């Protein structure tokens, strides 16, 4: 089986968990003998290409194929939106877009299509334009390649998936890692919602990363329950030798790691920190990550007078994340709405006890974790206090947590994804 897969990011260049998940999944699929052509907007060159063939969308030249997707492109025109509410917005401003603005004007289109596109590869302000360009390129690429099925990850690539499906007639599976309701609460971006819904409607089958997300897909997007299948994420088996990092602070360290955005619930973490520090000052809180709420959180922390015990690290990458976990005594994921949430698994793999919100997909697969409602700051503070004071708890997590995580293998998740592929292919017959 050969799969054409559309993603938006791939390790090591990641802004969120999507890249990590795609990496694990493609490796799992490779383990089962499925060949994957993975398309990302821009290939940096240092990704691990041992398991998959990585195509950079910008490599695609297309001139004579323009009419086959021209119609689709016209629809894409209307997806342009204001940039300030775009999710996953990276701190770097979207800057390099070599191609000029595209509009319905056919001569202009021809000119653009004759050139190579450059994609910035980051979630940027002009995201909608990139999404539509990506779709155009996808359709062209799809016609060049030979494959059985199309697999698209998250709304950014749905347009590409749909374009490829229309261009080739191959079945499409869309994979929901997050919905607009997770990212923005009730204030959804209508255009993003529309793209998501279009992708789900056009898809032959929909994969959701948890039952929590499946429910949202069914109730908020009106997708038929039979079409939506849950495949839980897993965690990449750890082959690296874990460096023993010695913590140099006497205090216990409680860590939040993730994008500092509404979806991740960072303000609840701050509130819990205040409660814990009132009772015990021998604790330090660390907020690792960046995001649109960072400044507000820093203000809050200063105003609450806990800044001497509350630290910000900015965005952390691979080895830094490992180091951070090695230093941590407790990991907290207070997400307001988390389709899955892979980082608690990474924490558990480093023997760090985790507190996770019940509003997360990962809560469905974990037993050896403390589960709380994201808004229940009292319960969160209480669990933090318990974990750093009662020694039997970390001992239990050490005994059971790591083993539990090691059993969540991408091989198993990939096997379920393959079942979905087979079902999608059968539906076509």
């Amino acid at each position: 089986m050969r799969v054409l897969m559309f993603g938006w990011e791939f390790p090591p260049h990641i802004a969120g968990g999507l890249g990590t998940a795609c990496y694990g999944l493609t490796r799992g699929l490779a383990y089962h003998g499925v060949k994957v052509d993975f398309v990302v907007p821009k290939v940096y060159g240092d990704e691990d290409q041992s398991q998959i063939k990585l195509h950079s969308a910008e490599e695609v030249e297309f001139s004579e194929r323009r009419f086959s997707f021209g119609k689709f492109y016209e629809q894409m025109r209307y997806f342009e939106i204001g940039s300030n509410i775009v999710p996953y917005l990276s701190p770097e401003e979207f800057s390099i877009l070599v191609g000029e603005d595209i509009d319905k004007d056919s001569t202009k289109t021809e000119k653009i299509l004759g050139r190579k596109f450059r994609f910035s590869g980051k979630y940027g302000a002009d995201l909608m334009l990139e999404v539509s360009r990506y779709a155009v390129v996808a359709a062209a690429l799809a016609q060049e390649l030979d494959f059985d099925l199309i697999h698209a990850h998250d709304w950014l690539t749905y347009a590409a998936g749909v374009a490829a499906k229309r261009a080739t007639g191959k079945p499409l599976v869309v994979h929901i890692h997050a919905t607009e309701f997770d990212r923005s609460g009730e204030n959804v971006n209508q255009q993003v919602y529309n793209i998501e819904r279009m992708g789900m409607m056009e898809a032959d089958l929909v994969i959701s990363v948890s039952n929590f997300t499946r429910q949202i897909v069914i109730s908020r997007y009106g997708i038929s329950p039979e079409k939506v299948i849950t495949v839980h994420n897993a965690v990449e088996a750890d082959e690296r030798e874990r460096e023993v990092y010695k913590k140099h602070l006497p205090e216990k360290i409680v860590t939040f790691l993730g994008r500092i955005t509404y979806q991740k619930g960072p303000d609840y973490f701050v509130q819990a920190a205040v409660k814990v520090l009132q009772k015990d000052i021998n604790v330090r809180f660390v907020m690792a990550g960046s995001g649109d709420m960072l400044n507000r959180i820093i203000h809050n922390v200063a105003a609450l007078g806990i800044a001497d015990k509350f630290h910000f690290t900015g965005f952390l990458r691979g080895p830094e994340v490992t180091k951070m976990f090695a230093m941590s005594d407790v990991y907290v994921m207070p997400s307001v709405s988390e389709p899955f949430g892979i980082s608690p698994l990474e924490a558990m793999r480093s023997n760090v006890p985790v507190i996770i919100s019940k509003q997360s997909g990962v809560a469905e697969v974990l037993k050896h974790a403390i589960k709380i409602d994201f808004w229940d700051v009292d319960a969160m503070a209480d669990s933090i206090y318990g974990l750093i004071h009662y020694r039997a708890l970390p001992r239990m997590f050490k005994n059971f947590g790591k083993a539990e995580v090691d059993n969540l293998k991408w091989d198993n998740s990939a096997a379920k994804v393959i079942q979905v592929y087979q079902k999608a292919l059968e539906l076509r017959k």
Partner: protein
Amino acid sequence: MKKVCIYFQVHQPFRLRTYRFFDIGLNHNYFDDYANRNYIRRIAERCYLPANQLLYDLLTKHKGKFKVAFSLSGTFIDQMLEYAPDVLESFQRLAKTKKVEFLAETYAHSLASLKDKAEFHAQIRAHTRKIEELFGYKPKVFRNTELVYSNQIGADVFELGFDGVLAEGAKHILGWRSPNFVYVNPVCPKQKVLLRNYKLSDDIAFRFSNQSWDQWPLTAEKYVSWLLNIESKEEIINIFMDYETIGEHQRSETGIFDFLRYLPSEILKHPQELEFVTPSEAIRQLQPISPISVDYPTSWADEERDLTAWLGNDLQQDAFNKLYEMQEFINNHPDSEIKKIYRYLQASDHFYYMSTKWFSDGEVHKYFNPFGSPYEAYINFRNVLNDFMLYTGFTCDVRHEVERLTKINRRQEEIIRELKHLLSINTKSTKKKTTTKAVTESIISEPKNEKSTPKKTVKKETPIAAKKTKTPTVKKSTTIKKSKDQ
């Protein structure tokens, strides 16, 4: 002739309320009065009251031929007194029929038998006294919490005069042997052991309403046919279960009340083959067939019939050991209210909630557990225990202690400074000796006064003191907190 011995366990723990760490040192109400009252009232309506009424009717109808035994835990009795005097009355009415036997157990439904013999004995005595006081009946046969039993536990209660004990007829202790005989404890051969027939007991307790069970629906007639089928040489069938089976675990819609209503008359239809006995009658009337050796404690819980439901993981063992660290201290504590709370905290249920076994096999565990996870249960219990240790004076509050010591330290520094000052001024003066003497005296006497002042006044002083001088970091945070509170 086979004897049928029916015994019902009645127990409710004092459930703990959600007790956060910020309650520690401030709030000493540990029990969820509202939930406890609700539980008792709900189960009273569904089970205790209607079932007691039914049993009363059956006992009077069958005029001495039908008999049952009960074991009421002390924590259940205390909650009846508080929330359900009507239930207590109905039990007293049953007691008056004289065909109901009450068994002895630990007052707090505790696992003290595994940890502290003196406490174990004390709880049994307290329970026996309570039963005598309320029902005018002195228990003669003992059953331990969750039917936890070993040779040693048997020997321990034999010291208190119990020559009969109830235990689980666990496969691993019986081997090829049948539970349907009376056995003796090999450590003290005068003590007889009645073993629960778990198959026939669980047919009612667990399987009664299970529609995928091939024997469903279970009628009294069918059940009695099984009793009759048991080999004629076997002597006694011990049917032991939770009383809440009647109406709570098996709701009245399942027909459990009708089953119970017709069971005695179905059994009494065969007077040549079956008759009812109470545990103490069985022990008096039947000769033991052989010793049964139980080297490691067994219980009636789960497939394993061991202690792993209560002491199977680190959380449970830690909480259990921490609790019993206080035992000696509590023994010497003069306050009876504190002793009572300590007993309530010993209820085996608190440890059951921390079990991780239900992850694999535990519909039963889940049903009984008010906590979302064993971790929550553990943290909650440890928070309570932490406060209880502070409240009773078993441990001292480190923060208070640090506060007290830094204050003394600061005062001493001040005095030293003053003395140096005086020394420098009065080097020529002849008065200097007398003044320094007076000041040094005050140093010695002041810390003593400090100890006797109640903690509250110490607290109030600190913010003012903090302003005056440099304070260590520990102090700082407490003052910050205080000003915010205001």
